[in-house]
């Protein structure tokens, strides 16, 4: 008797549990882990920096990160629920940001370039939040260079080390323009060579060139404003964190709608006589 009753009781309990689980969806909350559940946020900064060595980068002042990208990161972190005291910045690199994310040294990367379609995706990519254009920096008053094709036979500064090293090579080899590369140690050396008439042009992304131009003061070097290639800067996230990716895209949209993006762009690049796009870029998709 007892056994019958016990079996019956167990069956009844099991049935009620199964039914409750299905009808009330108790077990349906299988959400993927996301950085949004974390306590702190470590932001990797992968913006192309003109020079190596902390403190000398335009993106870092007194070992503190600043710049458009870090402001965007701070804004987005705030919208994701991380106050300033819960956000830390670290260096990441243009080529290594996916590795940094996978290793867990950073939670999110700003200034990340999208993964090439043929490459295997090892990260989730939100944004881009800004599109930078490859452009040229020329001497003020130089009328002979109007676009990148005019570099034929001209001297083009080539940074020998660091993340900017490929820029000049891309012009000469990628676009097949017969310019003469003139090696220089850093982007600063390039700008100096430009103002002293040892080279005719410096190439790099417009944002970087704008900042470099600003260091020469009036009449030194000017960005040409003739973009010849576009590169998308976005947010790198850990692979599969679609929830954070969708949230970031939404916050980027809002950042442009509210005018916050325009304010930041004007703050960082407005003085550099650079046409900046103040509308939201096309997202890659999460």
């Amino acid at each position, binding site marked *: 008797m*007892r056994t019958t009753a016990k079996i019956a009781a167990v069956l009844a309990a099991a049935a009620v549990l199964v039914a409750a689980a*299905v009808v009330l969806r108790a*077990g349906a909350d299988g959400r993927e882990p996301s950085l949004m559940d974390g306590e702190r946020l470590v932001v990797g900064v992968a913006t192309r920096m003109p020079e190596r060595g902390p403190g000398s980068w335009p993106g870092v002042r007194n070992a503190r990160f600043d710049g458009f990208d870090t402001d965007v990161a701070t804004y987005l972190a705030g919208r994701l629920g991380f106050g300033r005291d819960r956000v830390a910045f670290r260096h990441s690199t243009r080529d290594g940001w996916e590795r940094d994310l996978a290793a867990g040294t950073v939670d999110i990367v700003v200034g990340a370039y999208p993964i090439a379609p043929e490459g295997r995706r090892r990260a989730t990519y939100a944004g881009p939040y800004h599109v930078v254009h490859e452009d040229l920096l020329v001497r003020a008053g130089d009328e002979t260079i109007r676009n990148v094709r005019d570099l034929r036979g001209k001297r083009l500064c080539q940074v020998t080390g660091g993340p900017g090293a490929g820029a000049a090579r891309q012009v000469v080899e990628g676009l097949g323009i017969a310019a003469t590369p003139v090696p220089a140690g850093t982007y600063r050396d390039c700008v100096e060579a430009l103002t002293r008439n040892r080279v005719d042009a410096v190439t790099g992304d417009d944002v970087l060139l704008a900042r470099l131009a600003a260091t020469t003061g009036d009449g030194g070097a000017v960005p040409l404003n003739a973009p010849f290639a576009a590169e998308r800067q976005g947010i790198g996230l850990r692979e599969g964190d679609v929830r954070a990716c969708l949230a970031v895209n939404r916050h980027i949209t809002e950042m442009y709608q509210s005018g916050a993006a325009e304010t930041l762009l004007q703050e960082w690049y407005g003085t550099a006589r650079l046409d900046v796009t103040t509308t939201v870029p096309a997202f890659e998709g999460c």
Partner: protein
Amino acid sequence: MLITGIGGAGGGLLATGGFRKPTTSGSAGFPGLRGVPARVRALAALALLMPALLYAVTGAAVTDAREALRAVGHEEGPTVATMADVRLALADMDAEVAAVLLTGRESGWLCDPGQDSSCVREPPRHRYDIRREDAQRAVLQASRLAGGDPVRLRTVQAVLDGLHRYEQHVQAAMRDGARTRHAYGPLPPGALREYRAAHEVMAKDLMPKAGNLALDWTAELDTVYEGERSEIGAGRAGVLALGALAVAVLVLLQLYLGVRFRRVLNLGLAGATLATLALTAAGASLLATERDHLRAAKEGGADPALALARAQADARTLHADRSRSLFDPGRADLYGQAYRERSRTVLAGPGLPSGKRLLDHYAGYPGNAGAAAARAQVDPEWPQLPHPLFREHEQALDGRIGHHRYVTGRAVRDGERALAAWGWIRPLSLLAIAALVIGGVWPRLAEYR
């Protein structure tokens, strides 16, 4: 009557261990279950509870399936397609404008037969107007669908504003271009300035926003789809588990009655057991079928259709990028980069041979080939039309998109048809099982009266 000598036999049969305390009642833990009729009643109540639970769980899973089909077939799915159409319409407008400026046929564009009956408005302008209306209609539909989401609504509004600005710059470029002969060569500076402004609006404002809206809705569709699919799966597991439990209770009751009342088989309970088995099997197989239909509708229909629509918009923009680089050589490198990126998606995406043929054709006329390259953009016989190879690629894509949209429609219809019968199968089988259980147990209980 039949109550003699039951205790030991029944207990021994079910208590396989054979160990029983001879003292206090066996049901000490379950007060009120003393005596055979009470236990039969309790087991029968349990046997009635089970199909009721099965009914609820099947109902929840069927609702999930219906919701998922509705999302893919009638709500989020079509919305995603609408947003893809916005992008396609914008790409069409962009391509028509670029082709007219390349071929120097601005007067046929500007012609307004209402004002000047001597001129003829050319087909590109008609196509442009139709596509502009398409875009506008789709955007308005999107604004209706955006509902209360302020972020989306602002984006939709911005697209409408952008369309207006784009058109103003295009008209200005056309008016300026019409003053100079420039067919198949660079645009005059005034027209170029206006065109660049128009292109900025298209490439940096309209296209990104339309694309982002499409992505946004695609993500929503994916979330609904994945969620409902996993819930249908959980529902199916629940149906199987509850079906097994219901059968176990019925078998338990059958055995108990068999031992207590010395009957070989209670026909009512046997019928109820078979009906429960049938209901469980049918429910589980229905849910598996629904998952398949849903998958066919989404992954075999909606997803590839969307990817193809994107590839189609890319192919049109790619064609326009080439036209642009020919009449705006100053920015040829920037357009060239966009061209190279899109040519990858044209080749990698749908993998159609027509795409390869088109790119091979373009490759035969590099950008610096000047007028020859410009003439290679259009149909040699009818310069108002794009090159036949481009049209062939368009048709191939259209065919594939049509096929996938048909697959979605059919899978959703099939899924809904399979669900329709469950409106009456569920209550009817619940009633039948309950009647069989009661019919099986009632005569036994009556023996105690």
